[in-house]
């Protein structure tokens, strides 16, 4: 379910690191909790985002959810396809439904995030208590 080469946050974002670039999205758990995604608000290119701070918004029919930066960095790309097909966040949250790419300011931050097994355990616990 959760790709083993990604890292995860307690706010249900994921990041995949390739060299100095991190691709960021929301997890399958998050898209399922939100329901039908209808709008994604993302930062402009060049925006500096800070680990733990809000950088964007994902809206479903019923709710607005802020998206927190898993790491610090500078936005190099936003997923323009989501403007016309925001439902891709539901259909392929860990792939084509990615939100932004950033140039990592401090690659060491990544190791502080959960790996797939830890995240799976984290959401399993939430599902049991729900």
């Amino acid at each position, binding site marked *: 379910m959760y790709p083993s080469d990604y890292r995860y946050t307690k706010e249900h974002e994921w990041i995949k690191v390739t060299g100095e670039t991190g691709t960021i999205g929301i997890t399958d758990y998050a898209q399922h909790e939100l329901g039908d995604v209808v709008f994604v608000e993302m930062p402009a290119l060049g925006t500096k985002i800070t680990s733990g701070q809000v950088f964007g918004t994902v809206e479903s029919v*019923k709710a607005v959810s802020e998206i927190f930066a898993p790491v610090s960095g500078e936005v190099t790309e936003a997923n323009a396809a989501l403007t016309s097909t925001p439902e891709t966040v539901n259909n392929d949250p860990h792939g084509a439904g990615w939100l932004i790419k950033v140039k990592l300011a401090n690659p060491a931050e990544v190791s502080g995030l959960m790996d797939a097994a830890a995240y799976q355990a984290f959401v399993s616990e939430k599902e049991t208590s729900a």
Partner: protein
Amino acid sequence: MNDVHRRLNAKMVNFGGWDMPVEYSGIVAEHMATRTAAGLFDVSHMGEIEVRGGRALDLVQRVTCNDASKLAVGQAHYSGLMNERGTFVDDLLVHKISDTHYFLCVNASNQDQDFEHIRAHNRAGAQIENAGERYSQLAIQGPKALGILQRFTTAPLDSIHYYHFVFGQVDGADCLIARTGYTGEDGFEIYFAPEHSEKLWSALLDAGSEQGMLPCGLGARNTLRLEASMCLYGHEIDETTTPWEAGLGWICKPGKGEFLGRDILVRQKEAGVDRALVGFEMQDRLIARDACAVSIAGRPAGRVTSGSPAPFLKKNIGMAYVPAASKAPGTEISIGIRANDAPARIVPMPFYKRAKV
């Protein structure tokens, strides 16, 4: 019913003490199914209050603003439960079962306070029963609702007029079958003893799924009623709003005689309201949400009461209170959404009206 909903993978939420399904397959799919085929809603949380006896009509007339004396046996109407200030204790459906028996369907979270309010004003000596525990309710709504429900009952559904009801059996269970709803579609709301809940739900769902019916949760119920411009208690109406302000003058009948809040309502009608409920459409991609601030020409003007994407209309819509002088369709307004002042335009309501067959 909880287990039944969970087996359908419903997302559940605590709603005024009730564990309720928010969505099953997704709000958009459920909303579209109800507009184009049918939707099945478990609305057993809704409250029921029964008023009986020779003074039943007197009491209903005293606490509600619509004119219940105009109801025929087997007819229902939408009304407001009023307080002395002419504002809403609740909104409700009043069904006339007989000259001495009225059946009220009220909001779940208001049921107990509604009952106490009615009892406190029962000077005439009517018998009042807080009957929520004795009823479950399912709503089957949409263009295919009649055909699906008809398979389970000998009651001639097609001959029940809109906002009328009959008593009949559905799949062997005794039901009050009303042609009412909260979606803007044709359909029925059926009331029955709770022990029949699971059987009726499963039977209707099995039969309806062949025709595209989906089980629907509170999420789709909200987007459907918003597209149809129906008020939701706690949003468009509450203890601070009057029927005139909420655009509900059609349920407020001061000419019927004395009722709670009548004098204030008569004066407000003569003087005119200061604010009015309007519908609006967003002019860009931002989505207005409940409680967002509204401004007109840079001045604070009111608040959004309900805002959401409208899945069938494919627009972002909402309702809001604005100064009465600014209520005309076409008026440009701004909605405060996060850091943005997002442009919106007042439009006529209802946003959605089904094509009459």
